[in-house]
């Protein structure tokens, strides 16, 4: 039972991490969204499995929220935004893909280095989960800084949130408050992102962050 639980959780966690890597080397926006959907699905699965394995029914809610919001609603919305705003479909990486991958692997190594020696008292499952989620968070950040496109930055940001949820569900007995807040923040984040996307479109005719940044704060 525990072995199976461990393996399944491990598997799903690893899947989330793999999709994080996959996100890093996507060159097209739509495939980026697709990979993100897979990540959300995997995460939702991990949450559901934890709920089942540890008998924590509130985690089902988390799973459901993740499924509906991140696997369905957000990708669909982003699809529509891309189409409606006629955004360039390819992603312009700021860092070479190869370099990004090397950096990603280093980050995962760092996470494992950090987590493995420190959680001697925690269960193996928690340790694994923590290492995985730490990697996902760091990779999400890497994603944000290695892309110039606003949509991919949004995806990177949400991939960080996925890492957080992965960590939260991995810890036994984490009160619901946190998940609610995550859901809340994701929702609000998305709304605000949406507002910004529209307004940025209104002002700058493009979603490319670089163009926005050419506007400097210190006008003279």
């Amino acid at each position, binding site marked *: 039972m525990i072995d199976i639980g461990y393996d399944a959780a491990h598997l799903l966690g690893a899947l989330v991490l793999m999709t994080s890597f996959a996100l890093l080397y996507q060159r097209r926006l739509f495939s980026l969204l697709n990979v993100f959907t897979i990540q959300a699905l995997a995460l939702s699965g991990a949450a559901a499995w934890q709920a089942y394995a540890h008998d924590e029914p509130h985690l089902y809610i988390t799973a459901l929220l993740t499924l509906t919001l991140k696997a369905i609603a957000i990708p669909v919305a982003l699809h529509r935004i891309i189409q409606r705003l006629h955004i360039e479909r390819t992603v312009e990486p*700021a860092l070479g893909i190869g370099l990004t991958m090397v950096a990603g692997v280093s*980050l995962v190594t*760092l996470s494992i*280095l*950090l987590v493995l*020696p*420190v959680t001697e008292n925690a269960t193996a499952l928690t340790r694994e989960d923590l290492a995985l989620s730490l990697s996902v968070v*760091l990779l999400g*950040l*890497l994603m*944000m*800084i290695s*892309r*110039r496109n606003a949509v991919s*930055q949004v995806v990177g940001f949400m991939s960080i949130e996925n890492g957080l949820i992965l960590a939260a569900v991995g810890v036994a007995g984490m009160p619901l408050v946190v998940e609610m807040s995550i859901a809340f923040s994701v929702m609000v984040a998305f709304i605000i992102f949406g507002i910004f996307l529209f307004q940025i479109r209104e002002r700058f005719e493009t979603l490319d*962050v*670089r163009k*926005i*940044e050419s506007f*400097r*704060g*210190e006008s003279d």
Partner: protein
Amino acid sequence: MTLLFVALLALFALAVVGVAARRSPWVGTAVYGGTATACGLIGLWAVGALVGRDGAVAAVLPIGVPWIGVHLRADGVSAFFLLVVALGGVTASLFGWGYERAHEQAADHSGVHSGGESGPVLPFFPLFLAGMSLVLLANDAFSFLVSWEFMSLTSWLLVLSTHRDPDTPDAARLYLMMAVLGTLCLLLAFGLLVGTGGDYRFDAIRQHPPEAGAAALVVLLMVLGAGSKAGLVPLHVWLPLAHPAAPSHVSALMSGVMTKVAVYALVRVLFDLLGEPVWWWGGALMAAGAVTAVMGVLYALMQDDVKRLLACSTIENIGVILIALGLALVFKASHTPVIAALALSAALLHVVNHSLFKSLLFFVAGAILTATGTRDLNRLGGLIHRMPTTAVLALIGAAAISALPPLNGFVGEWLLFQAILNAPALPEWSLKIGIAVVGAAVALAAALAAACFVRLYGIAFLGRPRSAEAGRAGEVGRAMLAGMAIPAALCVALGVLPTFVIRLFEPAVRAMVQAGPFDDRSYQPWIWLAPTSAIGNSYNGLILLGMIAALSVALVLAIHRWASDRVRRSIAWGCGHDGDDPAALSQYSASSFAQPIRRAFGGTVFNARDRVEMPEPGDTRPARLTVCWTDPAWAFLFTPVRRAVNWLADHADALQFLTIRSYLTLMFAALVVVLTLVAVVRS
């Protein structure tokens, strides 16, 4: 102490009056009158404390650092410096009252409304005096530094009262910057003195003086911190800019009194708080003082602006005081307290002397400014005919600061030399020889100072007017004259009867070096200044003055009785000039007067160059002489620092204009670096 508190509170109250009643016509009279009264009370209290010799009085107020409170204490040293502040305060109030009225009237005449022309002086003037007094009374590090910085702040605001002058903002900025740098040095010094315990009381510091290394650092920081306020070369750069920028009575206070508060800080820490001194502290102080004295007077000789010249001369005098302090420290370290007392007496006497004649001379500069509207020496001349009383008082000031007997400046110098001549009593070879060099520096500075003030007086008051304004000038009002007359009279009195003053501040000297300057003499005739140490050395200003007066009168009577007393007026012989050139261009100017000295000293020190533009023969344009020189303090210290800050600021500024992605990268990098650090440290 009650009297003192009342006076201090009155000063604060007067500031409130100055703000609240700024529109009413009597406010100037009220504030300056009140300030003069309050300072008079402080002075009386100080004299009482010095004469009474009833030891130190102390008080604790429940404010300030919560677990410490504000500790106030007045011992002999505090009382002596309080007296200096009070004297300056009284005379500056008196002069300032007349000065401001004269300027208001001038503004009314010219139709420009004075309110829009300059910033407020009234609220900050009493506060400045209160700040200085509190520095002298503070008995814990916090109140000391608060008062110290408050003093800087109020004087900065006073400088800024002339903010419409084009030169003022830069001067004020530099001033405050240097003041704060100095305060930061003092903060560090007190940090070391206090240690980690957080007991900021001076009493606690006295009981646990720091060990040698920390004490050395404290000395260095104190010299930097107090030195920047006093005008130690090369930290003096603000002084010739800021002191002149303020209204003249404030300049007098800043130059004559505030620099002395910095001297007090040095005395308090080096002689009192740090415990037993080490000989090289004094050596360092003397070296710094010697450089300051000589450089200061050379700076003064290069200036064409009356007030700037006076400010530079302050640097020189501070140098002399520092030399005397250094000597006192050296002798204290070598356990010859009587000679230390002699040197310290010289220092303190010079403190009071300089405060007197420098106030007087700044008042004179203010009077000149009032009468002519200019401070440029090259636009003055012949004022002795138009401002006769001022001219007499200015002559007293110039003679006193040039250390001429029988005035007070000479007595200080004389005492200092008496102390210097005791150098052989010291065990350290480097000091014996070093003091000889320092003595030469003092002598050089004194001689150059005489040249400097011959130049000032000769150019401003003698000769023919160099501008129409100087030709139209008239004598200033009675209040201003009275403000000048008091320090002038005291200059004479102190020169003639120095023993009284030295006796008066003996408690201060005794508190610092545990001996008095006359301890070795069993009998001390009251008019003879005959300190301890050497045989037969004595000086008597009274007899000197009496002899000069008697001989002069006898001479005048004799010559007028037995020789000719006929006088004929004629034009001056000007080598072909008929003495009628209206611009008086053939006269020596301030720059030409300084030329020989500039040639002798300036070439190496200031890289001074004279450039003559001589038109072709037949060209009717006048020839022009331009003097250019660079200040080594700027060239080697301040300009590089300024450039470095600008360079760094330019490069750091790139951070303002990065892309969001770059900012995220920074954040990410910070996270990864810290995580890596944690991983490394843990394994």
